[in-house]
């Protein structure tokens, strides 16, 4: 693991000079701002339901997911796929580094980038605190949940990026898997499945997880879910990177 910080450093720099990710960054901020503005307007109506704006901001609305899934799919799409396409994977993998170090560094750099995307949204918290009391607990839980779920979906993106040499394919596949996990929640509401597997569907649905995080419920179950996705995806990615050599 001695090389990890060197690898992460390079990955991180590479992300910040990538034009694609600057587009992501701009779009992300635009949509988050738009969604925050919509939420505030919505909640200012006399008929509005009760609740803190930030609770709705984190997973409480479709807008959150509209932003969340594409960013998680796009950030890691080039991680291994681009290296493979450019041939730099050969230079990288013939240096004294392990497969695990490579995958972990890619993942951590992408995750870090994802975290940085959210930093500007702290301004909303600041803004709200100027006009009223803010319960910081749910806000922190919201950020924590977002980070953990983001990590889970980015690890899926790393996996798809390891499986192909085409970044676009990697991004689309990651988006597909992400949306599938997201939509599993709906199965819980089908009459035919209601009752029998409700718990299961609720457990695998990130929707219900994020709902709780947004309300400020910090439950180990909600943390175990994304963490287990991360471990599983990264494990598979390492195997895949190793396995590439067996074919």
């Amino acid at each position, binding site marked *: 693991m001695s090389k990890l910080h060197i690898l992460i450093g390079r990955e991180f720099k590479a992300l910040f000079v990538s034009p694609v990710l600057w587009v992501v960054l701009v779009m992300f901020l635009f949509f988050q701002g738009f969604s925050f503005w919509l939420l505030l307007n919505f909640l200012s109506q006399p008929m509005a339901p009760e609740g803190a704006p930030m609770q709705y901001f984190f997973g409480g609305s479709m807008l959150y997911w509209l932003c969340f899934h594409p960013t998680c799919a796009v950030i890691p799409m080039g991680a291994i796929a681009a290296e493979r396409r450019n041939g730099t994977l050969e230079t990288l993998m013939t240096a004294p580094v392990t497969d695990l170090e490579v995958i972990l560094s890619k993942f951590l750099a992408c995750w870090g980038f994802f975290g940085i995307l959210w930093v500007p949204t702290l301004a909303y918290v600041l803004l709200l605190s100027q006009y009223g009391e803010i319960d910081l607990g749910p806000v922190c839980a919201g950020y924590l949940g977002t980070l953990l779920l983001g990590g889970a979906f980015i690890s899926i993106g790393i996996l798809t990026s390891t499986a192909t040499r085409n970044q676009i*394919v990697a991004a689309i596949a990651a988006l597909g898997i992400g949306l599938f996990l997201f939509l599993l929640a709906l199965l819980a509401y089908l009459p035919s499945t209601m009752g029998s597997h409700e718990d299961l569907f609720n457990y695998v649905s990130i929707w219900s997880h994020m709902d709780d995080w947004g309300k400020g419920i910090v439950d180990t179950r909600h943390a175990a879910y994304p963490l287990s996705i991360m471990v599983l995806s990264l494990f598979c990615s390492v195997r895949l990177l190793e396995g590439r050599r067996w074919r």
Partner: protein
Amino acid sequence: MATAIEVEHLTKTFPGRVAVDDVSFSIEQGKIVGFLGPNGAGKTTTIRMLTCFLPATHGRAAVMGFDVFDQAIEVRRRIGYLPEATPVYPEMRVEEYLRYRARLKGVPRAKVTAAVEQAMERTGTVEARRRIVGHLSKGFRQRVGIADALVASPPILILDEPTIGLDPNQIRQTRELIRELGEDHTVFLSTHILPEVEQVCDRVVIIHKGRLSGEGTPAELRERVSQGVRLKVEVRWPQDVGRERARETIRGELERIEGVRAVTATGGAPGSGDDSYSFAVLASSDDQVRDRIFYAAVEADWILRELTVEAMSLEEVFAHITNAEDEERGEDDSEGGDGDEAGGEGGDGDEGKGVETSDEGEDGDEGGDDDEDGDGERQEG
């Protein structure tokens, strides 16, 4: 001398083709060894197995005594590798890239600057230190690749086609650099350019269609295949029978001499006059052949003006070896680009077994296609 690289029965098969077929050789430390073969012979695949990028299907390889499969990290610590297409992160600056690579290869923090400076100086990239790699010319990128290979001063340098795509000046510089590097490194370089081998290498390993077809010093190889010698014979025979007939007569006489295999008439040396005739004689390496030619000349009353042994160029050696093997195996070797060659798709299909002999003419297989031959990883095309 200890062994730097040892390869035993190394075999690599890809679905539908054998890229490297039971290759064994070993390389001593401190030598510059040329790995020679036409495009698609399996050079890159072999090198990728040596650098732990691809696993062998059968056989084993060891670098400085470490197995490339079981002790991959130890092996990678000891090699500096320049891949064929010189893949370098395009967004980084030269110095920044070399610093990153030096640290990645375990150069201690305090020594990184010195190591990078030295590598840049040796490869002549100092002036480009602040430039972005993606904006560099092919020649400069190649030099950055070489700088990367030697930045951690590994005992072994493995260079895959180091002069490909360079202009003649750069080629000369690169060869000089390689010769210099040979003083304190073991250098294993692959090439399909013969003069390169003749100029820089102490030893040659020849590979053709995935099989080892020769190993030794350039001189040894020449010896091995020239189970014959080529003689240059010029005689003067002032006769009044007409030039054509005289030449035919002499040719006939020469062919009758024991040990002579073939005689071809060639143009005479400038200023040798009307009654001079030149021949290229292919004879067995029997020491007496030249004597017999001399006596034959005396007997026939020819004036022997020249009788010299011509050394075979490595080029001819190569053509000889590869052709002989193709005949042995009864394969038709008419054109390259067939499926069983490791060089793969596109780019070099027109090369056939064309070993290039010129210094400058190496084009044709740079670019992305090289990357494809090894990995077999085109899931989505």
